[in-house]
């Protein structure tokens, strides 16, 4: 079995586990929906404020959900020594990381696609852009932004969740450690989404999206190179 197969098998294992337990799905979908609701209350009655804050709220909800999802994917493996067995597998540690990353990224991207119309509807924001640019194009770039943003987020979240999996106080520690690192990802993602939803400004969104993909690449290299020091069998 080569390493790529190992990555896909680990991703498959995580997704299968999720399909059977639905622990992450239930927690993240309802949690992020509640977050959107709470933020809507926090913005108050001002429709302009709501519209402009829609994408920010979407990414906050996605970020919180991503922390839960990443933590859960390691948490599930802590039981019955499953993690030790997984790490004893003769494949590079990075393969374990990539497998879990794929599973988490997949879940978060789907969650983002579900939350996008919800945030648009709740906050009265026009997801199609509302400008001269065709709505389908704007939505397509928006979905690409969500995919790129959740990738960057999942890169860091899965990395740090693995790091904190064996530590005390991991629930509170994970966000403390990872949020300062994902700031550039979140910032670029929110800016790109805002450019699209606010005015359908493809050029601006494209500039931020490129920056976002650049961040993704750098974090991918750093996390892959360092992951073998993070987990200990």
């Amino acid at each position, binding site marked *: 079995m080569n390493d790529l197969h190992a990555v896909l098998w680990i991703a498959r294992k995580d997704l299968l586990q999720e399909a059977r337990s639905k622990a992450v799905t239930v927690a993240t979908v309802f949690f992020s929906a509640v977050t959107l609701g709470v933020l809507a209350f926090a913005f108050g009655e001002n429709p302009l404020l709501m519209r402009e804050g829609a994408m920010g709220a979407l990414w906050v909800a996605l970020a919180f959900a991503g922390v839960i999802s990443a933590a859960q994917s390691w948490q599930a493996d802590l039981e019955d020594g499953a993690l030790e067995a997984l790490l004893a597998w003769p494949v590079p540690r990075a393969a374990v990381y990539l497998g879990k990353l794929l599973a988490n990224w997949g879940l978060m991207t789907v969650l983002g696609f579900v939350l996008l119309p919800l945030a648009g509807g709740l906050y009265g924001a026009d997801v199609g852009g509302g400008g001269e640019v065709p709505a389908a194009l704007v939505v397509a770039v928006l979905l690409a932004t969500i995919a790129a943003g959740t990738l960057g987020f999942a890169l*860091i979240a899965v*990395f740090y969740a693995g*790091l*904190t999996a064996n*530590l*005390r*106080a991991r629930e509170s*520690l994970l966000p*403390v*450690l990872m*949020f*300062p*690192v994902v*700031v*550039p990802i979140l*910032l*670029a993602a929110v*800016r790109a989404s805002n450019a699209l939803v606010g005015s359908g400004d493809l050029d601006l969104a494209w500039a931020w999206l490129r*920056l976002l993909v650049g*961040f993704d690449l*750098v*974090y991918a290299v*750093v*996390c892959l190179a*360092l992951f073998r*020091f*993070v987990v*200990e069998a």
Partner: protein
Amino acid sequence: MIDAAARLRRPLWLRTYLGITLLLFLAAAAFGLVFSPRDVTQGDLIRIMYAHVSVAWIAFVAVGLTAVFGALYLWRGQRRDDVLAVASGEMGLFFAGLTIIGGMTYSRPTLNTFWTWDAKLTLTAIMVALMVGYFIVRGLIDDPVRRGRVSAVVAIVAAASLPFNYLAAEWFRTLHPAKSVALDGSGVTMDGTMLAVLLFNTVVAGMIYLGFMIDRVRLGRVEAALEEERAQAVTQPAPVGKEVVRV
């Protein structure tokens, strides 16, 4: 047993160095407060700049060195690199905190606000958060080898994220004054005396960093030796007579 008190007593050269550093610090403060000319627009407020900018530079150097020592630890696995990393990390957090306090003192009268989400301020605040995370992680792991490895990883990721935090934050509208000393050598837009005073202040801040580093590393070595001795005492019967564990 380790005679911690004896090992922590500062040797003459270190006391001399710290004394000279203190004198130079007083001189640097005097240069900034007395000899520097008044600024055309800021007047006497420019005098805060010497302390603020020099401390900020050293803060970034310290955090960068934490990552460098962390990388060395991952590479060589020697305890002394971890001792250096944690010493530099503490200095980084300390200087970053001073940078924020000094910056607020400076920006309230000049920019009429304590805080703005400008690139440099955001970056420094994020750096403080990253270093706090670094020390929380260190506090949670008991095994020295695992602690060294994990905290080195945290430090490297933190340092790697700093340029991107800066890049992302700089696309905001910026209130912070532009750089007067361009690092690419394209020029200096600062009065000669002022630049000299600033550079002198930076050198002294660097000397303070180095002095604290040396002292903290000496303490870290004793800590490591004591930790090792305790670990051995748990696994082995108590040694007979005097034994010195050196790291």
